């Protein structure tokens, strides 16, 4: 096993901590055949998603300090512990409810691509606004890790963030990081692997402030959807989208099953990628 060597040499108290085995991280760049887990990287624009992406994959996708830099998906791979991961960097979006193409790409991937873990990168200095996206992602999928990034700037601005409280409220792991300075990435990797392997089971927060009428409508529709598509992991989200009048989702239901679509959606997203990745590098 890869870790034997490191374990033998060290004798500090940290050695029982799983994070200690950072030596396990092997950056694979774009070489990502036969992955065990797919990890999606979502977040608001300009929160440092691409920096996290680069730090984990060893790729050097260009990072820019401006919102909307990544409008397409970029992919890379890494090995951590005994597993191979494919990391997909999604375009930065403020929400998953709206209409522009970049939001649709992000939404489709989380919904239809069904990643094993979705990491939401969050700007610690603008927590409230960033949480809007986190809560929407939590509606779609249970397996989420929140990466509380830009902690260096939060400190600079004298903001203290209680990440444990946050983790408890959101029901998913929260890892404070400063990706620009490689701070907290070991813990992030550990959290990703724990969620991916099922060692940690999330109990995600669901929107609570809805009115009773709304809640009843949602649960009624959810039950029906579950009856028709028993394998769908996110019937509640589909119900929310239907009630919101999302034509695309309605189409997916009519055309004989979300199950087929999830495969199709993934393939279509892959195709879109081939050209996009090429151009991403060209910049």
């Amino acid at each position, binding site marked *: 096993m890869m870790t034997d060597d490191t374990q033998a040499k060290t004798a500090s108290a940290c050695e029982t901590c799983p994070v200690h085995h950072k030596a396990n991280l092997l950056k694979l760049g774009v070489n990502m055949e036969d992955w065990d887990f797919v990890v999606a990287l979502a977040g608001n624009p300009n929160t440092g998603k691409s920096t996290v992406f680069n730090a984990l994959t060893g790729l050097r996708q*260009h990072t820019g300090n401006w919102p909307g830099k990544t409008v397409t998906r970029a992919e890379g791979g890494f090995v951590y512990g005994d597993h191979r991961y494919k990391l997909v960097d999604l375009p930065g979006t403020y*929400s998953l409810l709206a209409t522009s193409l970049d939001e649709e790409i992000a939404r489709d991937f989380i919904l239809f691509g069904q990643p094993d873990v979705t990491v939401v990168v969050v700007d610690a200095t603008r*927590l409230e606004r960033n*949480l809007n996206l986190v809560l929407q992602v939590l509606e779609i999928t249970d397996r989420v890790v929140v990466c509380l990034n830009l902690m260096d700037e939060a400190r600079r601005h*004298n903001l203290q963030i209680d990440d444990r409280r946050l983790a408890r*409220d959101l029901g998913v792991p929260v890892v404070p990081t400063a990706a620009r300075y490689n701070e907290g990435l070991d813990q992030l990797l550990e959290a990703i692997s724990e969620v991916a392997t099922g060692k940690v089971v999330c109990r995600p927060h669901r*929107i609570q402030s809805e009115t009773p009428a709304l809640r009843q*409508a949602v649960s009624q529709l959810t039950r029906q959807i579950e009856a028709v598509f028993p394998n769908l992991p996110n019937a509640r989200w589909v119900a929310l989208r239907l009630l919101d009048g999302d034509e695309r989702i309605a189409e997916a239901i*009519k055309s004989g099953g979300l199950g087929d679509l999830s495969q199709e959606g993934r393939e279509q997203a892959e195709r879109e990628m081939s050209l996009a990745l090429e151009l991403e590098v060209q910049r």
Partner: protein
Amino acid sequence: MSQSKQTTPDDILATARALRWEIGRDFHERLVEAVYTDASRIADRAVTRGDGQARFDLDRTIDRIVTSRTWGVPIMLLLLTLVFWLTVSGANVPSGLLAGLLLDTIHPLLKNLAASIGMPWWLDGLLIDGVYLACAWVVSVMLPPMAIFFPLFTLLEDLGYLPRVVFNLDSAFKRVGAHGKQALSMSMGFGCNAAGVIATRIIDSPRERLIAIITNNFALCNGRWPTQILIATLFIGALVPAHLAGLISALAVVGVAVFGILLTFGVSWVLSRTELRGEVSTFSLELPPYRPPRILQTIYTSVIDRTIFVLWRAVVFAVPAGAVIWLSANVNVDGVSIAEHLIGFLDPFGLLLGLNGVILVAYIVAIPANEIVIPTILMLTVTTAGLQQVGAGAGVMFELESASGTLAILKAGGWTLLTGINLMLFSLLHNPCSTTLYTILKETDSWKWTVVSALLPLGMGFALTFIVAQVARLLGWA
């Protein structure tokens, strides 16, 4: 409501429709509100604010200046000029050194080697005088300016200056009926138009997105900056005393870039009032905090991502282009080479535009990549101007030790100040490269708009250079 045993997809949709009727039309707003309420409650519990707010204020003070009505645009132009001035004045010496090494030293070595192993003359010509020289030329002309320009531009980007540019230009874009975010896709276009076209995905209204796609070509891209910088240095910088040359050349390049931005506004305005009429959408733009750039990493990534990438692309296209040019200069039809036939055919039209046949042929050769325009022009000029003494035969690119050598060759090819200026204008205004066109086709899924995107700038380029040439000739300037 009770459910029957066999629920079908249509039942789901029917229920959804009924429920939508019941809850009313403001579902979306109520859902968004619920999300916001939860987010704000959770955030409140987790965040404690310290007292010191000094850093916030520093950022705001800077923002007040760089996005002010009075100073925003001048500061923008000043920064742009500074970047080009550093590029122009810094690139000359390394360019000369590279040219000396690749063209004066290695080229004769290769020729001798080929002679010593008895390589047939045509193979030697094709490989060494065609392919090798085209690549060597691309590297020596393009590498130094790019190695200076891209890191500088990337530093500005990392600092967080781009969103401020968007902020400054937003109201202008609104006024011409386009989307404020077009400023971002335009900025992206300054790097690569194909990437700029993809970047328009951040614009949600199809109408405004189409405007942004069609006008993206007016943002000078990687492949065109070196042409602008070189021609400005040779023709415009030469008009003034040496100590001012760098600054004036830089200003000329900024002038062309700004002209491109003005055209972006103009064409957007026309489109939004004719074919693409419609409402202007609003959006909120967040000014990110200024972040101290990590200088070494920025230099590394911009050299790898941009400089080497663009250079590699140029070399890849220069290899076949070099071979084709050499062949066309050495294969004769009716006693005259193919290249000369073609140039002679296009020359009258070129001269009408204040350009010449060589330039037009170069732009046809360079449809896949604008990067090879200058090398192609120089190769063709040497061939047709009969500058045998500089090179070693038809189709051979020549040795040149400095920019003045290049100028001498162009002048021998009949170039004037007008040719230089019109080349700069035509480099701004012509069809996008084939990669960009392919991207436009994929993004718009429409041949019509792809053709419009190709022909509109080309037509404008023909019209503008024609007018400039006629006016200059009427006034006796050229």
